[in-house]
């Protein structure tokens, strides 16, 4: 491995592959906070040049966190299809980038490749991609998954309906749910972030979701995003759930901070396949986000993009129905402003797709970031063009429980109409049946939640 380069008369040398990877990143405040970012844009460019000549075999042989030390590394490495890897291993990262972008390389080629690569390779090539590269590359990769309905088909843009409430009040949640449905949201999942992470309130909301789903015959999935162990207890006690959720990290230590490990997730998946209310076979829902490993001091000196890629490699093992990055949630010490959030959103989506998982994005921001609603509207348009499987949707983009802002119910029809996307087919038929859609668009009644409370 060549770990140095010369640029405009200056010699740049890097300690090791992790150092090259960190310094090759586009600017992120989190990498600066970790003390591993490039000092100048010239140094960043030099690191990109060094990285462009590294081979995929080098990346395979030098995982970001050693195999012996980390369960996530082991899962990613052990999941590699060796035949496919052998076909790809002599690519440099530059060649891999150009192969991904080539007209000759099809979406099917990329899906096949995803089985022969590690997360470090996914991260490395992402570092050499411009924003439009990330959009174009991702748009070639179609990843579908099936729970009760199939997500990820061509020309489809789905939405999670996120009817969060400050006290988990079921009436308040119900009204928000109805209003979201009346805008055509909810085909990805009806998914609540609960305030109270205990079995009873979680079961109550799951039951309420299930009843509404049955009563109105809504072809979709349900989930309450408590800790995975709380959901397991609720399901064991008979609560109806179609998907089981957990936030995950890109290192074993990061997952420990989230209170889980690989065997807990395997157990959760087995339980869902046995006692979940859905068809399957994809029964898992994961959330991630750049910077979470650093915030729990579990990043092993590795940059946040690489750690994020490892989340997807880890997630893939459990054949998830949906995975989304919560890209702007973590705050300005990890992603400083709208420029960094938009970049991270495009990176994460591309990495998820290249990993081979059904990828969505929570395009969002907090109030201590230099970003506003216009920025995430921009991001959502870019990601729709990139073929993002789904976004979140909440009333007017204002999450009253998590105290952040993301895409609103109104973004659901707006993005679909502007960029010619449709809801998941069965859901679209249901919207027509309910009179919310007419000829593939919102009807005059759409936006009135009370059509469900006559």
């Amino acid at each position, binding site marked *: 491995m060549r770990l140095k380069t010369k640029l405009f008369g200056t010699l740049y040398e890097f300690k090791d592959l992790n150092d090259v990877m960190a310094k090759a990143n586009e600017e992120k405040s989190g990498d600066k906070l970790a003390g591993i970012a490039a000092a100048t844009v010239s140094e960043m460019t030099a690191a990109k040049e060094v990285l462009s000549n590294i081979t995929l075999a080098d990346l395979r042989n030098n995982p970001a966190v050693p195999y012996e030390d980390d369960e996530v590394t082991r899962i990613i490495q052990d999941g590699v299809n060796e035949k496919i890897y052998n076909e790809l291993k002599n690519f440099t990262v530059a060649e891999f980038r150009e192969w991904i972008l080539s007209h000759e390389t099809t979406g099917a080629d990329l899906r096949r490749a995803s089985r022969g690569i590690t997360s470090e390779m996914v991260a490395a090539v992402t570092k050499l991609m411009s924003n439009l590269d990330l959009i174009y590359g991702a748009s070639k990769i179609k990843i579908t998954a099936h729970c009760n309905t199939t997500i990820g088909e061509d020309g489809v843009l789905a939405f999670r309906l996120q009817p969060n409430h400050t006290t988990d009040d079921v009436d308040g949640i119900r009204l928000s749910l109805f209003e979201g449905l009346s805008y055509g949201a909810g085909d990805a999942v009806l998914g609540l972030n609960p305030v109270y992470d205990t079995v009873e309130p979680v079961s109550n909301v799951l039951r309420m979701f299930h009843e509404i789903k049955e009563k109105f015959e809504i072809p979709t999935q349900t989930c309450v995003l408590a800790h995975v162990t709380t959901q397991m207890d609720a399901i064991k006690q008979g609560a109806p759930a179609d998907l089981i959720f957990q936030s995950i990290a890109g290192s074993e230590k990061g997952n420990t901070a989230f209170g889980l490990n690989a065997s807990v997730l395997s157990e959760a998946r087995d339980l869902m396949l046995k006692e979940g209310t859905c068809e399957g076979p994809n029964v898992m829902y994961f959330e991630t986000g750049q910077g979470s490993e650093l915030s729990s001091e579990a990043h092993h000196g590795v940059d946040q993009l690489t750690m994020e890629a490892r989340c997807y490699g880890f997630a893939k093992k459990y054949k998830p129905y949906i995975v989304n990055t919560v890209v702007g949630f973590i705050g300005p010490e990890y992603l400083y402003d709208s420029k960094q959030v938009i970049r991270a959103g495009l990176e994460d989506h591309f990495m998820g797709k290249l990993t081979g998982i059904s990828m969505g994005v929570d395009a969002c921001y907090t109030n*201590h970031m230099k970003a*506003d609603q216009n920025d995430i509207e921009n991001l959502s348009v870019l990601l729709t063009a990139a073929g993002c499987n789904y976004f979140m949707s909440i009333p007017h983009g204002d999450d009253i429980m998590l105290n952040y802002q993301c895409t609103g119910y109104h973004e659901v029809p707006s993005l679909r109409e502007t960029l010619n996307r449709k809801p998941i087919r069965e859901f679209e038929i249901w919207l027509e049946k309910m009179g919310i859609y007419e000829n593939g668009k919102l009807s005059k009644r759409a*936006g009135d939640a009370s059509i469900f409370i006559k």
Partner: protein
Amino acid sequence: MISEDRIKGIIENVLREMGSGEISTDLRTREATVSDDDIVDFGATDLRKQLLVPNSANEEAYLKLKETTPARLGIWRAGPRYMTQTQLRFRADHASAQDAVFNSVSEEFIKEWGILEVSSKCKDKDEFLTRPDLGRQINDETAEILRKNCVNKPKVQIVIVEGLSSTAIEVNARDTFESLTQGLKGHGIEGGTPFFIRNGRVPSMDSVSEVLQPEVTVALVGERPGLATSESLSCYIAYKASTSIPESARTVVSNIHQMGTPSVEAGAHIADIVVKILEQKTSGIDLK
């Protein structure tokens, strides 16, 4: 004079007309005659009571359910997009949140209050937002200032920590402090010398406690604002605070603001907690 009810009536009529795509020219002439005192504050509308959906299938149930949630529901649409008034209100609430985060507590406010001001290691707001590690610490000079100007080893040390909302500090910290001090006096407890930590994060209470060594430290901290309020203050209380205590050793009282726990009430409540902590010599999850 046009009464507030009358203005509300006018607005409701206009909204209804906007829903049907017609705008009354009548309004424009009326608007010109409204005096400053009669102008409605567009940030003051109670969103729970506002239903903008025209001819809804069940208006009564809609409004009743809206009472159960602060979510922005029943907001109707222009094509697939937001109505102008709800979009403006959203921007206004976000502006208020951003102002609270990115503006600093004014020096005049601290001067007028008459308490000592020190700073964390962060030199400005930008560093404060990107370097949480520095927002937790104070430098040696600051430690020296505290040693010289503050009572050493007080029973209770109250610190005002700027945190993520300058608005919360300016609106709610002083009343909470006065009420808390009164409450402690009622129990015969004298506090130490209060001071303000500019660009401080919650754990800066630990750093200053290592210098002054109070038995109990009470920090009033500006909370990261949501869109519902930018004035929310939190209170963190720890027994024998130091940089080695776990987060779980802090007792927290959050949501101190007009629509949550009002500041005067919160101060009295915090005083009672401090008394309990002094009795049990522990705080956080171990406090019974």
